[in-house]
């Protein structure tokens, strides 16, 4: 089943995919079927009482690792993100105006379903709740060599679109055999397959859970293949993973600054 979290008619709802768009399952309008453009899409993640752990991978596709820097890494190159970086499907992400290179990264996102500590590879997929699509934008102008990749590159607010759907793990028997691609204004710019990951989903769960407890709702963004290009304000970027979903985002210029208090009449 495909699950979503959306705002509709003044309230947040859980929803599932339906031939007409979405069927609302929890919230004041539960039972109603609505079209995909009638709702505001939120990240398809259940809210947590604690800060959500969001792990992300760098250089996790063989081809990209060879073009970018060096030989394949011996252990996953991972970093963390804050939850305020996440934003839902069909949202707008700010592209800072002075930037020369801001590129998308189409990534399979793994959502953890059970507390996981020291989970061996062979059992790793049993702790997965589901999968979604993430676009882990990078602002390369800001890349520095101190605690790389530094947060100014990877942790801007709302610069990590995620969604539209959380797809149950039972509906994704092999997360290592999914085609993925990205289009910019309808033109295909990135293509790949999760089969080319250096560290596949079970390996990543085994690796992380060896030293940390993964908790329900935590997310692992599994890296992106080759084919990332600079995008500009106005570009519509759609990152798609076969069987999981097509995540749309539009880059925009920052809003004009507004005074923090309204002027007295």
């Amino acid at each position, binding site marked *: 089943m495909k699950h979503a979290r959306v705002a509709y008619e003044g309230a947040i709802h859980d929803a599932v995919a339906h031939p007409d768009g979405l069927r609302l399952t929890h919230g004041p309008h539960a039972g109603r079927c609505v079209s995909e453009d009638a709702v505001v899409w939120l990240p398809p993640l259940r809210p947590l009482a*604690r*800060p*959500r*752990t969001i*792990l992300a991978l760098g250089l996790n596709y063989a081809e990209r690792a060879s073009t970018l820097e060096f030989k394949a890494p011996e*252990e996953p*190159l*991972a*970093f*963390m*993100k*804050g*939850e*305020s970086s996440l934003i839902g499907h069909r949202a707008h992400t700010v592209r*800072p105006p002075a930037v020369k290179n801001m590129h998308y990264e189409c990534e399979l996102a793994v959502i953890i379903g059970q507390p996981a*500590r020291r989970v061996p590879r062979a059992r790793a997929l049993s702790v997965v709740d589901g999968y979604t699509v993430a676009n882990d934008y990078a602002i390369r102008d*800001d890349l*520095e*060599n*101190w*605690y*790389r990749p*530094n*947060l*100014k590159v990877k*942790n*801007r*607010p709302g610069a990590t679109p995620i969604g539209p759907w959380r797809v149950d793990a039972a509906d994704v028997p092999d997360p290592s055999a999914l085609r993925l691609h990205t289009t910019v204004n309808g033109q295909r710019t990135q293509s790949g397959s999760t089969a080319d990951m250096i560290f596949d989903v079970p390996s990543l769960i085994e690796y*992380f859970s*060896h*030293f*940390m*407890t*993964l*908790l329900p709702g935590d997310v692992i963004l599994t890296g992106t293949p080759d084919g990332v290009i600079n995008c500009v304000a106005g570009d519509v970027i759609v990152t798609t993973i076969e069987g999981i979903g097509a995540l749309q985002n539009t880059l925009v210029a920052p809003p004009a600054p507004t005074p*923090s208090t309204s002027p007295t009449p």
Partner: protein
Amino acid sequence: MNQALGHWQPAGTVYGGLLTFSREWDLWAPRMQDKPYLAPPRAPVLYIKSANTFSPAGQSLRLEDGLTEVALCATLGLVMGEEGQVQALALLADWMVPHASYFRPAVRWRCRDGFLGLPAQATPVAHLGDWSALSWQVWRNDELVQTSSLAQLREPVSKRLADLQAFMPLQPGEVLMVGSDCLPDGTRPLFGPGDRVRISAPGLVSVEQGIEPAKEGMA
């Protein structure tokens, strides 16, 4: 994780800062142009402590996976309120696996289970006077091993908050750790099994934590 119900835990993402104290910056400065860094940092150097690291007051830190010692980044956490303002302060025992490179840190150096010792309570800044030169002391068992002060930061807290929030506004409940000072030789105080740490500062709730060896069969 629920043994300490009622004790404070961060409600939002916890961000850490590196190279914020003048002493550490000055020690690094001659090497900042070298490979792999190639230039001094322009933006704040930051990292995240994930929720699995939270160790509420009263819980020990257990060394696992063959670890025999851990380094302490004794720091002050700024607990954010509305509109990017500091709402409360919390002393924090930010543990790490000692590492010499600041290039590409492994998550396993900073985000092992229990690697952020918390005080029982955070203290609202409204209950404090001027805290701009607050200092805190680190004790290993009964020995004073480090004294740090906000006055030794390379830049004042207000400038640091402004620089960071220019690209990453902090949300209510999120915590920014101001960074930790190093010892004169550039290292951080080391702790091993059987040691006890206490971080204390005037007006704030202390952090106290014992270090325990791995459980049998888990090393």
